[in-house]
């Protein structure tokens, strides 16, 4: 049976891709951010997950307002990271696993979640940057990915509570897949930041650190916030916290924090990184 080996949450600020392309990882501005990743890569090297399930939000590469799903599950042979219009490098194709994706779709719909299914899906920086940070050489990465997009473009957005339940349902979907696979669940985005309006540049360090703490042992503590609460407390793009909540909620075993990092600022954002290991997951019924 498939099992979840752990959960990794990380920011996906576009400027990160520019810094990698220019080789600036050791630069004084970037070093406090990039120094978070070697321990996570060492864990991945040891655990070697077969598949990554990635909760991310599209920023207007694949989805437009003509057709805006609240939740969308990739079910393609591969996913193209293509040009987003403002100059960060595109990373080409990432392999999919349609059979696994359709299992996730069936399981979610049986549990009364109704995501869109995408047999063609462009994936933007919110998918590609975390993949690049975790596996700098694509060939050393998981053999396949299942991208799951959560709408953060057009309100109303799904609540933290709903995203938590989605994560739990995805966790059950993974645990019921008959193939013997090691799965890592990734949540991308955040932490506090705001790009638009007179409050642009808003960051809330104490709230971010509280969330990173609660995600380890008590993630359900975060579902009492509404989307509007999150916008007010963590900025209009800080709502990307819902991806972290969904990813964390997928884990059902004994959860241990392996590593974390937090740094302000990367671009306009408080950048966070959290690696949780899922141990002794109970055998599926």
């Amino acid at each position: 049976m498939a099992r979840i080996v752990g959960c990794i949450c990380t920011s996906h600020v576009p400027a990160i891709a520019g810094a990698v392309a220019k080789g600036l990882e050791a630069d004084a501005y970037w070093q406090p951010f990039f120094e978070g990743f070697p321990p996570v890569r060492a864990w991945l090297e040891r655990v070697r997950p077969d598949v990554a399930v990635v909760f991310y939000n599209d920023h207007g590469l694949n989805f437009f307002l003509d057709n805006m799903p609240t939740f969308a599950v990739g079910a393609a042979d591969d996913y193209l990271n293509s040009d987003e219009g403002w100059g960060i490098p595109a990373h080409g194709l990432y392999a999919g696993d349609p059979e696994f994706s359709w299992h996730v779709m069936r399981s979610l719909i049986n549990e009364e979640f109704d995501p869109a299914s995408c047999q063609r899906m462009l994936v933007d920086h919110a998918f590609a940057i975390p993949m690049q940070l975790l596996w700098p050489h694509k060939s050393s990465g998981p053999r396949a990915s299942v991208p799951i997009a959560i709408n953060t473009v057009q309100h109303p957005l799904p609540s933290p509570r709903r995203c938590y339940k989605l994560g739990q349902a995805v966790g059950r979907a993974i645990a019921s897949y008959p193939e013997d696979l090691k799965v890592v669940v990734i949540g991308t985005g955040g932490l506090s930041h705001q790009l638009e309006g007179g409050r642009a540049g808003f960051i809330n360090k104490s709230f971010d650190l509280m969330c990173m703490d609660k995600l380890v042992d008590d993630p359900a503590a975060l579902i009492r916030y509404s989307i509007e609460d999150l916008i007010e407390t963590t900025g209009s793009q800080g709502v990307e916290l819902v991806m972290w909540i969904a990813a964390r909620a997928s884990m059902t075993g004994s959860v241990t924090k392996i590593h974390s990092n937090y740094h302000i600022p990367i671009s306009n954002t408080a950048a966070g990184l959290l690696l949780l290991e899922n141990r002794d997951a109970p055998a599926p019924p």
Partner: protein
Amino acid sequence: MRDHSESRSSETRMRTDDGSPHERSRKFAAARVIEGTPIFDGERAVRGYALNRMCFSLNERANRDAFLADEDAYCRKYSLNDEQINAVRSRNVQALLSAGGNIYYLAKLAGCFGLNVQDIGAQQTGMSVEAFRAKLRAAAET
């Protein structure tokens, strides 16, 4: 690639709705007002459709080249209204947001103008870019 031949202007969409702008706001708008924080809700998504569709097209290099070669013609091709065309001309992010723009789609337009997120943050807050960066750095000390 997506079909950009669809010609659904914001004007056409407005006419299909029987309410005044205020009534439309009541029907589609988000509830809570958070200072300095435009919420891209149904009301804005309807009003900003043409502008955002134009920005969405800028994912493709050929479209960016066409936009930069003749901005006004490109805006007309996407049926932007006068407020939206003027907002594009002004390079003013607050004006683009007021005209129904969504920040993620507008980022592609800003990229065409060579503006990054610190530039647009500084512009929206009335600060110099250096002062805006200093404000971000200061958030680490809180």
